[in-house]
């Protein structure tokens, strides 16, 4: 067991390194650099950047150097616990990401929570009453969430919120609480802003979870022990909930690892539309601006989260289900 964990951990480190290289390369792929993006951005807003100024900027940011030099610089900084300066924000990357990161987690966890609250009952019902009208209806509702283009839905909800409820537009806080220090009032303000983003983000994942739950439960329900339990006289509810559901939940453990980074990156567009101060829109803007250290750090972060998540899932799975251990060794 320990050997297995050790090996996986080693491989994980290698994966993380590979991700860092890949991340850097990808960010550099679009032509131009931060300065060209900056000039274009200025041009869009009606300002002119003279060639001299552009040249000055390039020299100061060290953008003329080859990519591996810049990569090496970055890795050196990371080793010192410093993730570099964001060119666009003129602040250390850690500060820029700072508060947004855990807000992202809050939003993602809320979305996840909503997903499970919706998906599990529907999945169970669907499996138990397979091919019934209820099954179809339930899966239909679940799948609508998957099919609706969520950015459009987000915009519509934003507008409706304003016209019907005079709600404050977008964001996770009311203007008064945006910069205020933490307090119960601020936490409550956050909570009131969470439902719409959580709903839109959570809907898409619902269908997938319904499907998995349904399939797993169906597999379990066909097993002999269920027939035994029923014949022994247990009520239907106990028959289903006591054992099969718990077993069917096992594979969920294996997917936890992937869900958080999936939700973070899957939520980029919706966060952008809703104007949420999360990591997604930050990454998008950093990519467009070619703000290397900021974009690279976020991508690396997401990658690391995935790798750690996978590691945890794999270990969990091996721990829970001994059969898999045999297969892998």
């Amino acid at each position, binding site marked *: 067991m320990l050997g297995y964990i050790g090996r996986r951990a080693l491989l994980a480190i290698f994966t993380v390194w590979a991700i860092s290289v890949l991340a850097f390369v990808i960010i550099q792929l679009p032509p131009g650099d931060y300065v060209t993006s900056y*000039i*274009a951005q200025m041009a869009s807003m009606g300002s002119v950047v003279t060639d001299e100024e552009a040249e000055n900027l390039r020299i100061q940011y060290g953008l003329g150097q080859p990519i591996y030099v810049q990569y090496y610089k970055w890795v050196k900084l990371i080793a010192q616990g410093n993730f570099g300066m964001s060119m*666009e924000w003129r602040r250390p990357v850690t500060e820029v990401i700072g508060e947004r990161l855990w807000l992202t987690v809050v939003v993602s966890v809320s979305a996840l929570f909503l997903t499970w609250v919706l998906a599990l009952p529907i999945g169970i019902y669907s499996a138990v009453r397979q091919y019934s009208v209820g099954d179809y209806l339930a899966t239909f509702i679940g799948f609508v969430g998957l099919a609706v283009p969520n950015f459009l839905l987000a915009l519509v909800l934003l507008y409706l919120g304003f016209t019907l409820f*005079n709600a404050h537009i977008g964001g996770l806080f009311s203007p008064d609480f945006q910069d205020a220090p933490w307090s119960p009032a601020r936490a409550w303000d956050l909570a009131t802003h969470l439902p719409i983003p959580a709903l839109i983000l959570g809907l898409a994942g619902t269908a997938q979870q319904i499907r998995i739950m349904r399939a797993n439960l169906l597999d379990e329900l066909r097993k002999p022990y269920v027939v035994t339990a029923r014949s022994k006289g247990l009520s239907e509810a106990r028959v289903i909930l006591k054992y099969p559901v718990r077993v069917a939940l096992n594979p969920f453990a294996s997917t936890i690892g992937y869900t958080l980074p999936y939700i973070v990156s899957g939520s980029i567009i919706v966060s952008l539309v809703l104007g949420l101060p999360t990591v997604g829109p930050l990454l998008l803007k950093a990519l467009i601006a070619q703000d290397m250290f900021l974009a690279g750090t976020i991508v690396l972060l997401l990658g690391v989260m995935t790798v750690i998540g996978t590691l945890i899932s794999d270990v969990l799975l091996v721990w829970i289900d001994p059969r898999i251990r045999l297969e892998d060794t």
Partner: protein
Amino acid sequence: MTQLWRTPRRGTLRSRLTIALLVALLTALVAAGALAQGKSALIGKLEGPEVVADPTKFPKTFKEAPQLTEQVKAGKLPPVAERIGQDPLVIKPLHEVGRYGGTWRGGFTGPADFWNGFRCCSGPDHLMFWDYTGDKVMPNLARSLEMQDGGRTWLVHLRRGMKWSDGKPFTADDFVFWFEDVYRNKDLVPTPTAAMAINGKQGEIQKVDAQTVRFRFPEPYYMLPDVLAGSTDLAGQWGGYKGMGGFAPAHYLKQFHPKYVGQAELDKKVKEAKFDSWVRMFLFKNDWALNPELPVLSPWKTVTPINTPTWTLERNPYSVFVDTAGNQLPYIDRVVLTLAENLEVLNLRAIAGEYDFQQRHLDLGKLPVFIENQAKGGYKVYLDPGDYGGDMIIKFNLNYDADPEIAKWFNTADFRRALALGIDRDQINETFWLGTGTPSSVVPADSNKYNPGPQYRRMWATLDVRKANEMLDKIGLAKKDTEGYRLRSDGKGRLRIEIMTLGGQFVQFTQISEMIREQWKKIGIDLVVQEVERSLALKRTAANEQQLGAWNNDGSEHLFTFPLHVFPFELAAVASSGPLYVKWFHSAGTQGKEPEPRMRELMDKWKKAFGVPEKERIQLGKEIWKIAAEEVYIIGVIGMGPASMGVRVVKANLGNIPSRQYNSPDGKTPGISRPVTFYWKK
């Protein structure tokens, strides 16, 4: 939605008809009235506050905001008269003297949106500035400007007793510091600016006495007042982020400069503050939007910087601006700009009335939604059309050489003119400008002093399909293929040209180009529309890969400070008329490619204008526009429209708001309306 009209019974038909006729008549009258008013009730009359130049009319006693009075009482601030000095900058408010208090809320899009703050809240802190018509240059932070020695020397007289926001005096030393230690330091400013030079030769700044600064140039530099007034590198402290501005707070910045602190000591500071280099730290410290500790001269100063979710600015107790009653300006205590992650959210917030005065980033296409929600949001909508000829223009890249056939046609004037005649501008105006623009050639508004005359407004800028076809037939493109597109003269098939556009701008370049593509089918031209990312556009343009480029020419109304969209002036451009010409122009002929005769003529006139008196310069300006309109290097599509920062949303109870502003980057609109005079009526 569609309405169904049911035919009423015959008896009431006549009376209903009469009523309908009366209503129609009334509507026609109202509409005519609205038209007479300048296209729409949303476009008002150009107006703005005036700077009082006559010292005898200055107020004798001064008043200040209540919270400042408290501080004076507590001994934290000197009395107001001492803070302002002996030469206040007196502004007569547009409508009435206002009252103190309140917060101004607005929206910004991120750390790259610093122009947002420069425009609304920097004063503006130019030494000279425009009057509200954008036409006349007048003293601003400088008390006066004196020309000597045939234009070679200019004396800037400062205001006596004027102070930085931390109470230290603002003197000629701040100019010398900037010139010697910032501008001339090759690390801070590797490449000098053209604003400080005449005919390529750099000038210098010297101290005459504490209140007088001398700008000296090797040749007459008549344009200097305009340069000091416009948004150029010499225009004010807002330019500090790139090491420009003309002056800088010496007493504060010296601690970050190796000459005064020593390199070793400085390196230690740099490391502690986690900067890459002392250069980056210095420029950061001199950044008006980023450094709350930087002493400033503007009426508001940054309190929480632009790289946070809320950019807050608060009143500067040492502000030199006062109104005619002696009240120290600004009236409004704070400006709070909140971050909007994307433009739709920003616009939606403006629609919802979450902003008090917002002019930036508002989308003309949403105008009906803005109007619809005026009552609910408690605001009023205004339109400020620009004075430049091209809210949308199309540039021909005259240097394009990847395809000699296309290069040939781009350099044929009649080809360009014919294409210009093939555009149905009324359609485009109605669809994308909602009818508020003006179909036009590239020349600026009639009221602009460089306008060459009304006959140039529609020169080569009408819809004349017949003539366009004739012209194209005549120059050698008469042969067409089975679908009606013209064939190349070199026999290689259909003539296909490409236009590069950017998405996500104030103006819908891609969609408009799509429309033009349909329109040019009628003259047999096959246009391919390619929308690209911003950086990609820049790269391709600079590498001479662009054929046609769609953009706007805002700023060109100030032809001499913003020539970028009149002739190829910068390599770093989203659309260019000729990158090789840019190189030729800036290298005095040693690099690049020599422009064709008329373009050369245009460039020569432009260069000459800096060194001649105003009257001659105006004449040169007119001639430049004449050439531009005749040669059609750039096709003007729709001009003088409000698409680019011309949609303004203002809360109904804000006072001293002009009904129309001069919309120009040089005017730092709304800076030109002196936001220091805005106040909350209550």
